[in-house]
């Protein structure tokens, strides 16, 4: 755990970068510091490994005041990843990753084995080990940076816009990979970004800073989006706050309605009655095992006699329990029925999600 206790940083020119900050970063969580430039987020991050010294207040790492630890000693226990990566151009990928093991005096065999392990962990092929950084792509370099930071398995990682220098497609892939990696390694991570979407995607908790180094709000993303504490936070989250929140809530969080469900063998008139009872002009068609077949116009079914005689149209998009409500909303707006149909893993019909259910959930 990392605790800031009334930490202030004033620079020589009189500007206050961080103003009386109290913050607790829980163990094993990914905490994002986010805010516009000049809000003190990077300064806050760099005070944790004493790259910048606090002007007043205390920073504790696992209960120990870091001001009392020799900086190089402290830094070897804290992984560090920056946007420009800062790989050593004169060392091979393998030697770059071996930097901290070498500094703390691991023997050669242990280091070699660890380098191999880390290359695999970050998804790099073994043959890049003997290449130099300038022979890699931007995405590969970023992975080497992460591997280097993880080398001695430090309990804490500091990441300053780590995915800022790669193109959006690579960035999104690196983010996903990193989240999977974090599931595995469970580090205490402090992550700086100016991109609120990245913060929402990556963070277990988000600290929003305002210019002048004020912490405006510190909360899990879901809570932040639901109840922004100040106008600044609401502005920073942006006008699509509701949509962003939907992305964080799983479909399983709302109770799906059973909807007008019929089977192909049912009488068309019965289908029409079911649709009218539900208040729609369509019915969901499932087979005897409740496997989803599609939907049909209720009127057409009534005319033709049997539901199965009407044209059964597929639902182009279906959602599952673990999908986000944002995916459900997308399915709704793309379907003539105006609802999202929820299915199980075996494609069995589980119910429908409506716009009404969504707005009830987020309002």
């Amino acid at each position, binding site marked *: 755990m990392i605790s800031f206790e009334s930490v202030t940083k004033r620079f020589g020119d009189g500007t206050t970068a961080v103003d009386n900050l109290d913050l607790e970063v829980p163990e094993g969580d990914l905490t994002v510091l986010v805010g516009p430039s000049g809000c003190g987020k990077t300064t806050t991050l760099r005070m944790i*490994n004493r*790259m910048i010294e606090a002007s007043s207040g205390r920073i504790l790492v696992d209960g120990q005041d870091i001001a009392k630890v020799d*900086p*190089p*000693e*402290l*830094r*070897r226990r*804290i992984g*560090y990843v*920056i946007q*420009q*990566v*800062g*790989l*050593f*151009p*004169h*060392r*091979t990928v393998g030697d770059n990753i071996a*930097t*901290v093991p070498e*500094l*703390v005096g691991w023997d050669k065999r242990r280091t070699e084995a660890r380098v191999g392990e880390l290359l695999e962990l970050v998804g790099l092929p073994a043959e890049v080990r003997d*290449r*130099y950084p*300038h*022979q890699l792509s931007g995405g590969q370099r970023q992975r080497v940076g992460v591997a*280097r930071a993880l080398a001695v398995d430090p309990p804490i990682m*500091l990441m300053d816009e780590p995915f800022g220098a790669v193109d959006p497609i690579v960035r999104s892939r690196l983010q996903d990979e990193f989240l999977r990696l974090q599931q595995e390694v469970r580090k205490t991570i402090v992550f700086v970004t100016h991109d609120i979407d990245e913060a929402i995607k990556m963070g277990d908790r988000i600290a929003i800073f305002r210019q002048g180094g004020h912490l405006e709000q510190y909360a899990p993303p879901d809570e932040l989006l639901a109840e922004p504490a100040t106008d600044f936070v609401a502005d920073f989250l942006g006008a699509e706050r509701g949509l962003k929140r939907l992305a964080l809530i799983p479909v399983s969080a709302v109770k799906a309605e059973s909807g007008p469900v019929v089977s192909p063998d049912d009488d068309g008139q019965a289908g029409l009655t079911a649709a009218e009872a539900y208040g729609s002009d369509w019915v969901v068609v499932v087979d005897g095992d409740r496997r989803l077949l599609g939907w049909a116009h209720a009127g057409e079914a009534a005319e033709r006699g049997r539901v199965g005689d009407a044209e059964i149209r597929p639902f182009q998009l279906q959602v599952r329990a673990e999908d986000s409500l944002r995916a459900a909303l997308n399915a709704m707006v793309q379907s003539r029925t105006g609802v999202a149909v929820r299915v199980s893993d075996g494609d069995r019909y589980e119910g429908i999600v409506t716009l009404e259910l969504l707005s009830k959930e987020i309002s």
Partner: protein
Amino acid sequence: MTDAPAPVLAAELIRWSWVGDHLDDIRGYLFQHVQLTVLAVLFGLLLAFPLALVAVRWPRTYSPVLGFTGVLFTIPSLALFILLIPFTGLSVRTSLIGLTIYTLLILVRNIVEGLRGVDPDVREAAQAMGYTPARQLLQVELPLALPVIMAGIRIATVTTIGLVTVTALIGQGGLGRLFIDGFTLNFTTPIVVGIVLSALLAFAADLALVGLQRQLTPWARSRGS
């Protein structure tokens, strides 16, 4: 009016028999030339490094350091050697002190520029990985500054090889002694031998330093041509 005797052009630019008779002398001069050059550049490096480190650590000292070594560099070489004679006499010491002083400007400037040219992100990363300042200098910054430092060493070496000949006037001089011999004897052969050998020496030294640099910077070799 046209009886004037044809000018006694040095009938030949080089008399090989003289070269053959003086091989031992020539070898000795060449050896001294190499020795003076190597020692001057070495002492130059020993002095330039601390000066450069001070200039990098405290940037305000850079201008004065550069200014001082620059002033030393502008003193005419002959004048400098003559100025030193009252203190150190007509000795190897005098020529070494002079030659070393002339390497300082180039070496200090290139070491400082080399160290300053290290990518700040790389420096930041090294610090954040937990390098102590001394280890960071030796293992990260110096290797990365090496190409610029080596460029300085090359210029300093070639310049020194030229300057060594001047010290012949104070009784040292390596191959420069051949110029004095040729001049006093009014005989071109030693002069030609001296010029050719010192040029070859400069060329060979430069080539050797380039080779050394390639050996020391394997990461630069794989860069696209």
